[in-house]
């Protein structure tokens, strides 16, 4: 009806009378149309309130449009210097998550004592009091029995409030087992940058100033990190820069690039070393960063060793060693055969990349590095950034900017004897053993080996786990070799899951605690970098809370601490009472106050003008809450040149830092670096272990039985595997090139389809040495022949009634992690997702 506002009251009466006169036309004149003042102009009925999206690890600062305590729309937070008003498609899907009817709204407990995939847990609702009471008893009985180390905390996605639950609570209870998800994230991606430039972190990519981007196994327009920001500028970036994408699958970014290099899975090392070879033999390196031959004459030529003294390096270390040990025979001809790419293309890309120096970059994503031999691929690809002087430079790869958020009070004085003894035990993930160097920041045994915790639990090695809590995680779905987790979780006598949805992990739990949604029902903060800034952005409870859910990282540990105190163990509560309101000094009295005070405490330097340290000037807490975000100072280019956190302070082509770390690990186990290489499935021996180098790709599954190589990728609508109960995820599934709406498909090249007798729409079974799944086939030219591609996110058999075909029983499509075997990049502890397995494909009839 068109303009109600034009309707006069008389018209209304007249029309109503006419309606009354007959003809059932109730739809025509719904009463609410006249509820408003007919003369009034339409105005927006809600207001925009800031929070943060965690649909991926971009952590965009966003604003939610809230109408009467009900968030209904999302946009980027214009106050953020990182993503600004841009926000990617998956941010909107969060709205379907928070109002998902299948969310758990009150605590539940299991009534079927038998655990297993086929056992219905028979969950029944219980009170928070009963739930917390049971959990507290379980924890105390462990402590009383001197087994506090048999408590485990599993962390998935998190905010920076995490340490309250993840670190402090675990330590004060007395367990070493706070197991994070980091190793199923992308730790190997940090490996290369750390052992070359001393940066254990994800990089920012200065795309607006670059002239050449060589992207390795990353799909920044679809997934991770700063998707919103990169999307917002890509159209302009293409005007200025040439873009080459290395990926066996035609990714979103490949569709918006100049060159696609559909490399054979795992062969990235050959391509990277060949590009380095071309850069050196052709004299294309960036001399202001790398230095030059003392007499200016290039001595790098195929097969010839060079005298180290002839080259004078500036901000790098070990270039000539690298050449002599690795690069001198890594010709494009050699690489062409290994990579499956034409030699001319390799040379062309090498020239294009180097010619744009220093405003060129290698963008290294998870693809080439989350592989069995990915550690050195991470180094080899990242080392190219050193050759062209892209590191820390305009148009290159940047570190995160400095930010000033703080931590929480230390646990030390609240750890009693039991706790002190408990934390001394070996961790359940077996990190630090000879075969798991897991060397975060150069320290052997310092990185989590998330996916190996399942083995630790199953083998009771080093011991059994008796009580475990998981939050914001779903290892039974998200970890490769997921079937191992199903068995491991079934084995834990008492398992608690803090979650929004009853997921696969919940299926094995004894108690489910319903958690608030991270974007709409939680206080927290996140920090991330992009666009030359770091922002620290708040998560706020913008919605009126209508369910009996609690915040995972703050309210639940507080309530648990209270229970423990009631039962005679008050250390945790005493520790938490230290989290006072920085403005008033008030001690928190309830879980809501605790959550808020803890947040104010951790972010104080950002909002308290008295403690201003840098970046945005924010005028007090209320101002911060209103803005929702703090931005750092702009990026200080080239500050780290000559001051990198490596052993030499320079960019290391010959990694003294890695040499020290590997030697320390070998010494700890009384063996040699060569032996460490061997048990970690690396081929390098001798000096080769300290330089970026090529390793032959390897993946489980005999090629005669499993002839195809598996190519996993992430959907641009998958909120880290949590979108499957949202209709928009399915309805728009085809925005991922090769995918089909409302289907879970594997993409197969038509050449292969013809050989297999499979056509689009066929149901197929994909099998690997670790398991098999069923899904639909889609014939697609964008996937390399000999490989099979599929995006992650479908294949839930729990989580909700849309996510699963039949909740608790039948998955919708297939979960990639069923067929990806549990393998590791052992130097970083990272789990293998790419070049992860060989598979066979059969038509299901």
């Amino acid at each position, binding site marked *: 009806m068109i303009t109600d506002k034009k309707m006069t009251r008389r018209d209304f009466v007249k029309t109503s009378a006419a309606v009354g006169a007959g003809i059932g036309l109730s739809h025509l004149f719904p009463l*609410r149309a006249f509820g408003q003042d007919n003369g009034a102009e339409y105005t927006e009925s809600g207001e925009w309130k800031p929070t943060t999206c965690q649909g991926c690890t971009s952590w965009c600062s966003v604003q939610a449009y809230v109408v009467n305590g009900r968030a209904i729309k999302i946009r980027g937070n214009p106050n953020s210097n990182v993503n600004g008003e841009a926000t990617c*498609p998956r941010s909107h899907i969060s709205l379907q998550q928070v109002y998902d009817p299948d969310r*758990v709204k009150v605590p539940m407990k299991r009534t079927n004592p038998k655990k297993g995939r086929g056992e219905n847990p028979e969950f029944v609702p219980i009170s928070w009091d009963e739930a917390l009471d049971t959990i507290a008893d379980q924890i105390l009985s462990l402590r009383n029995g001197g087994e506090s180390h048999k408590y485990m905390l599993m962390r998935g996605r998190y905010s920076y409030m995490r340490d309250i639950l993840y670190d402090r609570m675990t330590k004060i209870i007395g367990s070493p087992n706070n197991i994070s998800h980091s190793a199923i994230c992308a730790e190997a991606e940090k490996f290369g940058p750390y052992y070359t430039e001393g940066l254990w972190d994800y990089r920012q990519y200065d795309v607006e100033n670059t002239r050449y981007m060589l992207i390795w196994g990353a799909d920044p327009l679809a997934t991770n990190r700063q998707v919103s920001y990169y999307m917002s500028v890509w159209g302009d970036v293409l005007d200025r820069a040439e873009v080459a994408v290395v990926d066996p699958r035609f990714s979103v970014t490949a569709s918006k690039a100049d060159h696609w290099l559909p490399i054979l899975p795992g062969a990235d090392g050959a391509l990277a070393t060949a590009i380095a070879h071309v850069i050196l033999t052709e004299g294309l390196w960036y001399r202001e960063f790398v230095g030059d031959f003392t007499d200016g004459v290039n001595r790098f030529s195929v097969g010839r060793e060079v005298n180290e003294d002839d080259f004078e390096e500036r901000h790098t270390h070990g270039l000539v060693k690298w050449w002599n040990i690795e690069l001198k025979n890594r010709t494009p001809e050699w690489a062409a055969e290994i990579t499956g790419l034409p030699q001319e293309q390799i040379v062309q890309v090498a020239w294009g990349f180097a010619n744009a120096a220093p405003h060129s970059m290698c963008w290294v994503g998870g693809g080439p590095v989350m592989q069995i031999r990915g550690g050195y691929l991470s180094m080899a690809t990242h080392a190219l950034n050193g050759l062209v002087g892209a590191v820390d430079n305009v148009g290159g790869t940047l570190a995160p900017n400095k930010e000033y958020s703080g931590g929480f009070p230390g646990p030390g004085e609240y750890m009693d004897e039991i706790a002190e003894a408990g934390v001394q035990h070996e961790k359940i993930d077996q990190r630090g053993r000879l075969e798991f160097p897991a060397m975060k920041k150069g320290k052997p045994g310092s990185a989590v080996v998330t996916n190996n915790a399942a083995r630790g639990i199953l083998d009771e090695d080093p011991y059994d786990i008796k009580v475990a809590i998981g939050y914001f995680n779903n290892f039974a779905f998200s970890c490769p070799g997921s079937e191992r987790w199903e068995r491991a979780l079934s084995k834990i006598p008492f398992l608690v899951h803090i979650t929004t949805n009853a997921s696969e992990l919940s299926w094995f739990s004894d108690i489910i605690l319903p958690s608030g949604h991270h974007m709409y029902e939680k206080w927290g903060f996140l920090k991330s970098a992009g666009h030359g800034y770091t922002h620290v952005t708040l998560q706020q409870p913008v919605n009126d809370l209508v369910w009996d859910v609690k915040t995972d990282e703050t309210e639940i540990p507080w309530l648990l601490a209270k229970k423990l105190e009631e039962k005679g163990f008050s250390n945790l509560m005493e520790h938490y009472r230290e989290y006072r309101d920085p403005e008033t000094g008030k001690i928190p009295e309830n879980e809501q106050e605790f959550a808020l005070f803890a947040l104010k405490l951790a972010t104080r330097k950002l909002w308290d003008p008295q403690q201003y340290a840098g970046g945005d000037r924010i005028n007090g807490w209320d101002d911060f809450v209103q803005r929702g975000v703090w931005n750092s100072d702009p990026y200080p280019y080239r500050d780290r040149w000559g001051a990198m956190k490596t052993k030499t302070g320079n960019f290391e082509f010959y990694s003294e830092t890695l040499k020290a770390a590997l030697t320390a690990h070998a010494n700890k186990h009384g063996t040699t670096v060569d032996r460490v290489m061997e048990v970690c499935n690396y081929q390098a021996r001798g000096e080769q272990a300290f330089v970026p180098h090529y390793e032959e790709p390897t993946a489980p599954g005999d090629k005669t039985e499993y002839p195809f190589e598996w190519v996993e990728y992430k959907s641009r609508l998958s909120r880290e595997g949590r979108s499957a109960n949202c209709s928009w995820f399915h309805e728009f599934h085809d925005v991922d090139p090769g995918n089909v709406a409302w289907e879970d498909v594997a993409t197969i090249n038509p050449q292969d389809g013809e050989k297999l007798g499979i056509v689009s729409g066929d149901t197929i079974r994909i099998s690997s040495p670790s398991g098999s799944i069923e899904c639909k086939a889609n014939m697609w030219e964008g996937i390399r022949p000999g490989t099979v591609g599929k995006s992650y996110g479908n294949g839930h058999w729990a989580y909700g009634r849309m996510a699963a075909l039949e909740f608790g029983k039948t998955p919708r499509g297939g979960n990639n992690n069923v067929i990806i075997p549990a393998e590791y990049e052992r130097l970083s502890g990272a789990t293998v997702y790419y070049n992860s397995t060989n598979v066979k494909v059969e038509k299901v009839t």
Partner: protein
Amino acid sequence: MGKRKDKDTQGDKKGLTRRELLLGATGFAVATGAIVHSVSAQTSNRPNLEGKELAMVIDLQRCTGCGACAIACKNENNVQDGVAWAWHETRTTGTFPNVQYEYMPTLCNHCQNAPCVRLCPTKAMHKVAGGITAHTPEKCIGCKSCIAACPYKVITPNKKEPHKFWKSDEQLFAGASDSPKEVVEKVGGDTIPLYNPDREQFLEGSGLRYKGIVEKCTFCDHRVTQGKLPYCVERCPTKARIFGDLNDPNSKVNEILSKYSAKRLREYLGTEPKVFYVREFNPATYRKSKGSV
């Protein structure tokens, strides 16, 4: 274009007289006639769009094919699953390894010469100020001829009751999770928890549609009349959508259209769409060569 608009605004008046004549001729019940009369008396009026010729330019080089426009559209306009006001088509061409992928965002083209308006027997589909092709739900009899007439696949029927999912009272966990219906009761909203009340204007005062009628993009007339951009334009993370008035020589759309050779969908049909596409989804460079034989 100005002429066209004049005709549009007068069109309703003319229709009215003809209708009145027909009323006499057919001798239908006076009460029925009164309803129709009163309905048509409130002809769609968007005074602040008078004299405007609204248009959208989609810059395909900026577009990354993410679908945010279409998702945001559903969000803004309370559009149910299986119906789309804004949509997309994709295409993969070439043979490995020389492959191209393209994404084409689509929406109602608000054709100057709209086949849907021509064919609609009840004038539910009609042109209003600003050049918007508007649809009046209450006039729609659901004959679907507009869908047949539209060459762009941007009008969708409501074959089933919309948002029926949200009326279900089945819980996943008895007593521990809510039925869809309970969610709406607790959260608020209308039929759906994400109900956007701002959409009530111009659509019978309800932000929702119902079974039997068709629906389509309205260029976010409820926003545009308030001086706000269409929601898909606002939410496009790549700023690929540019909106404005073709009658304003200095508008951004005219600036862009003067720079690029714009393409419109199936232009040869003579529908004169108001959605223009500029640049290429993939503007890739290539290595110079004359090729070979």
